[in-house]
């Protein structure tokens, strides 16, 4: 199936959106709710499944939709098609939380990309969204990405979004990189994904890095995020007085030590 070749432009620094330029007849699929604006001549259509195979049977569509549900996407995808006779039209998709959008040209990575659940933003029509089930029990439990990851397949452009700054790292054959669990956004299928115990009980308990690292071994390209959303959410909750939290980062040493007490409240409070 021929993919639609799309042109795009990224806006913003760390709260980005991507503007996609469509030629007549071209289409892009977007995660439900991700659309920010669209110009005249672009028609929005909601389809069941991911639109990669329009001729699929009902059962096949249901299965595809079920897979999408498991990977944290909606049951439906929206397709934005340029229906005008001529000229270029634009549609934009915005990231749902602070972070960066990375365009990945699927043919450049061998046609398949494994990515973090829920990280898909939009793609050229024809890119299929599947699931990559983590078969290694230990990795599924402690690797930080769970058992279900997303598999993007096709030969078009796909946009992936994750928190903080996204870092693309190329691993040479045999090169390994130890990564904090939860920071992996996407990888090529040739990259081995495993976990490794931090090695010392003392580190496991007090380093704050948890019990395991994720270990990635080349060859291949990986994308890492500097700030998983859950981590940021944690900090926000910790700092939200309404939820009984209080940021400890801004308190003085005294304030930090005596946060609970009256004095601590006065010293550490920044209200």
């Amino acid at each position, binding site marked *: 199936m021929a993919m639609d070749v799309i042109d795009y432009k990224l806006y913003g620094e760390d709260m980005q959106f991507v503007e996609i330029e469509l030629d007549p007849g071209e289409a892009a699929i977007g995660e439900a709710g991700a659309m920010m604006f669209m110009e005249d001549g672009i028609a929005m259509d909601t389809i069941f499944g991911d639109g990669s195979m329009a001729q699929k049977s009902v059962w096949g569509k249901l299965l595809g939709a079920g897979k999408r549900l498991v990977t944290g996407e909606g049951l439906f995808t929206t397709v934005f098609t340029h229906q005008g006779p001529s000229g270029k039209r634009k549609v934009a998709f915005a990231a749902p939380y602070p972070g960066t959008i990375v365009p990945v040209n699927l043919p450049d990575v061998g046609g398949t990309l494994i990515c973090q659940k829920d990280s898909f933003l939009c793609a050229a029509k024809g890119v299929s969204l599947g699931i990559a089930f983590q078969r290694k029990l230990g990795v599924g439990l402690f690797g930080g990405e769970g058992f279900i990851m997303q598999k993007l397949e096709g030969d078009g452009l796909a946009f992936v979004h994750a928190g903080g700054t996204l870092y693309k790292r190329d691993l040479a*054959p045999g090169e390994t990189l130890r990564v904090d669990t939860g920071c992996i956004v996407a990888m090529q299928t040739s990259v081995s994904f495993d976990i490794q115990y931090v090695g010392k009980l003392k580190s496991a308990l007090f380093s704050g890095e948890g019990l395991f690292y994720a270990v990635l071994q080349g060859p291949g390209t990986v994308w890492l995020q500097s700030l998983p959303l859950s981590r940021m959410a944690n900090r926000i909750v910790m700092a939200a007085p309404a939820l009984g939290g209080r940021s400890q980062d801004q308190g003085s040493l005294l304030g930090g030590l005596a946060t609970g007490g009256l004095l601590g409240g006065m010293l550490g409070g920044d209200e």
Partner: protein
Amino acid sequence: MQFASLVYGPGLPPSGSRLAVRLDSFHLTLTLTDNRPLSVPLTQVRVAVGGFNDTVWRFEWSDAEGRWAVTLDDVATQQALLAKPPAALAQALASVGKKQRRTRTRTHLGIGALGLWFALPVLLLIALLWNASNFTGWIAAKVPLKTEQKLGDMVWKAQKAQLRLVENTAANEAVATIGAKLTQGSRYSYRWFVARDNSINAFAIPGGTVVVHTGLIEAAKTPEELAGVLAHEVQHIEQRHSLRAMAQSLGTMAGLGMVFGDVSGIAQIAASLSQLSYSRDAEREADARGLAVLKAAAIDPQGMVRMFETLGKESEGLNPPAMLSSHPATAERIARLKTAIAEAGSWPVQPLALDWAAVQASVR
């Protein structure tokens, strides 16, 4: 053997480049982008399994420029290679295949174990509910008689206030006489009451209290019909049905809560449904055992059948669906009763010596 796959190496794009790869008996040959062939003797090539989920084979070697890797993730090609490996790689490929199989087995085992872990509480709960009547019987048997009587007294005190009791009439005497016949040798000491109420009903309270509505006495054409109902009610007490129902409902709630967490709404519905089903079973048991008691007391069982027929006429058109009813459908009860009577055979019958017309007149 020839295939196209992603190749990583010095001078190639970091995300790999799809190149044609040829494997013959002694060499692995790549055709680089500028049509320059690169050939490596298989003796220098190491085979490893890796990639996401261990699905990828890597052919790795090093030369002066750096490390190279050919990745092969196509399952069909992998199978073809396993079936007909180049001699120099036969051993390495076999061990790679073995490793992949091992990973797969481990995954299946792991998923099986995880599935079992999550299914276990549910299975236990199902087993528990399946055998609920055994368990509740066992629990009810543990409750001492005194506790049961205390409980019964409490219920009776609450009920008494809402009843208009009839005392010192021929009907009281008749109920007590028939009741005594039906409860010979019981460990409970029974108390018999008659309440003024036109509905055809009688009920039992744990610990040995039986209340008969005057409507029932008026509707009964013979003392045997009253005896049939009393035999049924007495069995509710003898079999401790109330205690077992309590155990059942509390147990269901607790079990569901333990397995599914706080689902009080659903648990309540499930518990009351299971209680209703229990209650239907209990009614059937009371019917069957009541019949046996009638036989022991030499009372005509046709009275019981006739009473049910009267009841059936009374409640015609009011029958709720079986699942939502506390009693089995009357037609079903009558059919069951008739079969049971036929199975038990006829027994010598002593007519109850009571002036029934006088009894009925005494509550009018």
